[in-house]
Structure formats: C-alpha cells, structure tokens
C-alpha cells in the first residue's frame, strides 16, 4: 500500500462535517442503538423489521444490507456508529478501514502502522 498523504481529501479522509452529521442522523441513531445487547439480538434476528423502527430510507437500508461501510460514512453515519454495526456482524475497525482503502484486511493489517513523518511548520 502507498503511504497516506498529508491532506484531508476523499478518499483518504471522509470528514464528518456538521452537514453529514445531520444528513446521517437516522443512520447514526440506528447504528448506535446496537450498543444495547438486546437490540443487537433483535437486529440479527430480523434486520429488516428492526430497521423499520428507525427513519431509514430504502437507500439507507440497502447500504446497511450491503455492509457498504464506505458509503455509510459518506452518507453521514458516524464512524463510531458504523463500528457498532460492524461489530454486530462480527467485524472490527480493520474491516471498515480495508473497505475504505480498497484493500483486503490482510493487506491493511500488514501495512499498519503506516509510518509517515511531518510536524507543523515543516511540511
């Protein structure tokens, strides 16, 4: 993998802006509900029925079903919320990161830590 760049542009970074926070509010709320063990069980038993409880759009639900972590982040679900969804499906941070970076989890694990060097004032 190439080393990370020093900028905040996509696809390197999906900034969680205030607009995104607002647009993704229902997705974030849905994902955060999975902090509760009984909710995790209910969701896994019948994902579609469970998602009906939240004001998700059909497109939102498709992203969840597809476990399209990258599109969920772009849609405004907060990473820490998406992580609850990922954990509910037995995954972890590296699954999300690998999907974001377009590599396999094995590749990403091997690449970390991705050492770079720079300090402020000396770009």
């Amino acid at each position: 993998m190439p080393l990370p760049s020093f900028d905040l542009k996509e696809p390197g970074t999906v900034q969680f802006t205030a607009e995104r926070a607002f647009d993704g509010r229902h997705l974030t709320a849905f994902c955060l509900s999975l902090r509760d063990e009984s909710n995790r069980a209910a969701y896994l038993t019948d994902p579609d029925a469970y998602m009906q409880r939240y004001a998700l759009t059909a497109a939102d639900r498709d992203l969840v079903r597809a476990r399209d972590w990258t599109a969920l982040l772009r849609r405004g679900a907060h990473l820490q919320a998406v992580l609850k969804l990922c954990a509910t499906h037995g995954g972890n941070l590296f699954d999300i990161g690998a999907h974001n970076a377009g590599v396999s989890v094995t590749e990403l694990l091997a690449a970390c830590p991705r050492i770079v060097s720079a300090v402020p004032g000396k770009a």
Partner: protein
Amino acid sequence: MARIIGGLGISHTPSMGVEFDRAADNGAVATEWQPWFEGTRPARALLERLRPDHLVIVYNDHLNHFTLDAYPTFAIGVGNGFPQMDEGWGLRPLPELPGDHRWGIHLTEQLIERDFDLTVCQGLGVDHGIFSWLPYLLEPPWTVPITPIAVNMIREPLPRPQRLADLGLALRAAVEAHPSEERVLIVATGGMSHQISGARFGIANADLDKWFLQQLPAHLDDLLKIEVRELQRLGGTEASELALWYAMRAALGPQAGVEYSFSSFPKITGCGVLVMTEPEEAIR
C-alpha cells in the same frame, strides 16, 4: 485549599484495553504492545509516589455514552461511580470508576461561575477514553475518586484549542477553591496520531507524537496557534484529540516540570504518556 500536584497526559485506544485483558489472561504481553507496557511502568511508579487524593480526567466519549441527539461540548460527571459502557463486544472485567459527587458538584459550581457551559450528568457511563489506559497505571480496585469531564471530539465544530487551555486554567482556580487539603492530579487523555477510517486508515506519524510531547511542557502558547485541522492533516483525523492535552498543561503552573515522557506506536494509534509535577512536588 486543595491544590494541583501535577498532571498526566496519556493516549487511549480500545486496543490498549483489549491487550491489557489479553495479557492478564495469558500472563504475557504481545510483542507489539511490549514497548507500551514497559513504557507505562515508570508512570505507574510516579503516580504511586504522588499519592493523589482526586483525579480530574478530561477525556472524550466516542458515541458510547452520548448520542448525536444531544452531544455536549463539555459534560461533567456528578456521581459516586461511573460505569463502563459496552462498546459492542461486551464489558471488560473491570469495576466502575469511583466518584465523589461532592467534588462533582464543587467543580460544576466553580466552572459554571467561570462561564463554562457544562452539561451536568448525574448518570454518566464511560468508554475506553478512560477505561483503556487506567488499568496500566492504577490497579483495581480503584480507590481514588475521579471527576470525568467529557469534551466533544466527535462532531464538528470542536471547541477551539484555546477553549481547552481556558478550561485548564479554570480547573486550577476551581481546585484551589475546594475547602480541603486534597492533592489533585489533572489528567487529559486523547489518542495521539491516528485515523481509523478512509484510505488514510492507519496513518502513523510517530514523529509528530514525539514532537508534541517535547513541545507541550514549555510551548503551549505555540501549540495553541496550530489549527486542529493541521494536526488532523499531519496526524490523522483523530489526532484532534491531542487538543485535550492542552487542558492538562494549562491547569499546571508555568514552572511545572516533566517527570517522565514516553511514546510508542503499537499498531494504529500513537501511544504516549507524559507526567508533570509542580515544583514543590518535583521528584526528578
């Protein structure tokens, strides 16, 4: 009056906690976490010598307690205990954080009097922001009461870096207004360089972390001029949490000195620790 005896800056990350539990089970620390484990030993010894009576911990929640329905810029915990939050993989075998609601009320009154617009939490759960590093430095059962102050590092806009330094100054005045002889340690915890999403996932600017640990003790004013976005650009989006460390430094007097400083980069988060003391508490 109570007084501040020193400060602790330290990283947090879920994997640090996971590794602590695994090492406890296995009787051995994994190779990549060995430097961090060893690196925390001197800090642990220093805390033992400093004998704090109270810890004020400036940390950040990661959507494990709060939600975006109501996300506070600054929240304070008022309680005699603060439970651990389940972050999705079940609870870790740790007791709740001990608290002292009278300290919580005191600090709330003092900070609101100084125009900090706190959200006051009588039911506050805490995540790896505190639980991940605490077992490395203090062995359970924990007896020193804690007042947690949660700062928004989750949603934009974040508080200005100067606001965090101002919080530190206000904490100093608030502690000194406490009618006791207690010895208070100010703790600030935020991950050092890291980014856990996007194609920059895993960015590891270990030099930035070392530079930060060198700058913080004597050059806070210079650090405050750096925009949080610049820290994010160089160290990853979650390097914004370094701004929390400003509250610790600003709470100490200008003559406070470094007792110990260490950093390592186990996997995806810069892990560092800094212990400072006020001159009359100097051990070095």
